[in-house]
């Protein structure tokens, strides 16, 4: 497949035509305007909200919750996953419990979190941690299990300490799987933060969007959605860039293997 370096003219043309259609239809039909305000009006609202700082407050609140929940989940899940992947006995103990909890949609934990932690930040962070935990944990366990045993044994033969085996063999060996888990966790974290803010929040982008809908302020609502989508897009791009930088050695290895 050829590299996608060329600018996608037809795609952007179709997109602009759609936007133009939206703009004219919404201007022509006042009945539609309540539901779909003109795109120019939405963008104006977004600019105004950003400049006046009315939305930046919600944005930072959501972002802080997101980062806290995501990093905490990553720290817990990766360390637990390495332990469970390495010690088969421990995994056999917990396997059934994990299989029991996993099929439950993670958002169902929100009411429990409200009950125990109230309606504050800690509830939203806890829910995010819980939901992000699963993909990262499962992938890390898989990754550690798929490391070639000879690598670890070689390390042992050369008398490496347990710490060095962990840092220099297990972590790099499992990292492709861990990265996959972290990537899945990224979008889940954003989903959970916005959901928890909708169900029980008085701050944050999720709350903002729902609140604007309830007060029939649809252009502000769409402005909030654009901001969340932008946030999701940038987080994803940032992750991919970071992955390319840190996992360079691996891309090199794959290319070499392919040749």
């Amino acid at each position: 497949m050829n590299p996608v370096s060329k600018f996608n003219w037809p795609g952007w043309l179709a997109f602009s035509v759609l936007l133009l259609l939206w703009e004219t239809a919404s201007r022509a039909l006042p009945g539609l305007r309540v539901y779909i305000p003109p795109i120019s009006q939405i963008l104006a609202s977004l600019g105004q909200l950003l400049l006046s700082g009315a939305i930046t407050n919600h944005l930072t609140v959501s972002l802080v919750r997101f980062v806290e929940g995501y990093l905490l989940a990553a720290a817990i899940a990766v360390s637990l996953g390495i332990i469970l992947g390495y010690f088969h006995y421990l995994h056999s103990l917990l396997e059934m419990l994990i299989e029991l909890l996993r099929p439950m949609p993670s958002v169902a934990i929100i009411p429990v979190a409200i009950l125990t932690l109230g309606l504050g930040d800690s509830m939203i962070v806890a829910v995010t941690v819980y939901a992000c935990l699963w993909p990262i944990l499962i992938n890390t366990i898989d990754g550690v299990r798929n490391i070639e045993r000879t690598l670890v044994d070689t390390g042992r033969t050369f008398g490496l300490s347990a710490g060095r085996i962990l840092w220099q063999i297990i972590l790099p060996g499992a990292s492709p799987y861990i990265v996959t888990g972290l990537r899945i966790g990224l979008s889940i974290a954003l989903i959970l933060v916005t959901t928890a803010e909708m169900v029980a929040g008085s701050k944050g982008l999720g709350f903002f969007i729902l609140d604007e809908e309830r007060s029939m302020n649809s252009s502000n609502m769409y402005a909030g959605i654009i901001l969340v989508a932008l946030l999701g897009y940038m987080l994803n791009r940032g992750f991919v860039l970071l992955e390319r930088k840190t996992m360079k050695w691996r891309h090199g290895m794959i290319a070499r293997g392919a040749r």
Partner: protein
Amino acid sequence: MRAVKLNGLMFMLGLFAVWELVAQAELINPLVVPPLSKILKIFFELLWSGQIPAQIVVSMKRALLGYFLAAAVFIPLGILMGLYQPVYRVCEVVVEMLRPVPPPVVIPVAMLFFGLGDEMKIFVIFFSCAWPILLNTIDGVRNLDWVLLNTARTFGLSPGKICWQVILPACSPQIITGLRVSLPIMLILVVISEMVGSTDGIGYFILDSQRRFRVAQMYAGMLSLAILGYALNQIFNLLHRRLLAWHWGMMTKME
């Protein structure tokens, strides 16, 4: 293998026993963690009285409608986008613009258009299941063996027949992957949309129980949701094995 399973089972039962004892002794607030026996008792009561099954039926009706609607729209679109590069180029930007929108954020939009009714949930599920189905179908069509297509053309099969007898079967493993990925998304989104704006359904049931401080009832609702998630997955696997028996046979032969 069996010994390993036994290990896990014993550990879990031990954990449940500790939970029961701690809750019975009221070491932690019984309003937060009621004894397991009480949860199970209420679960079975609600099961027999038909209260939980009724909520699940309501939720599943919405969920499956949105899910099948997404499949009906986005599998054909994916095939078109995979086969014809111009179609792909035209749709690409719009898809890439919509994809990063986190699905729960669509709920307010759907509420604006459809109110709090069933259509709102169906639309939200439709939107969020769309992307995995679409992207996997495109991938499947792109990885199609062109010899298959050309052979079919040489034999003068009509486009309709090519689509039904060559493209769809050849891509079905990838399409199935998309459908499988969407299944938990469907369940999550029906629960979220019922929590945010609904007066019935299992998501509403759980949140409402919490608001009324009927904690055991809330846990019973969560338990039924876990069972539902497990059952959906099992049914999916069963259907997959039945409908795509040839694919399973091929995979085992290749090994």
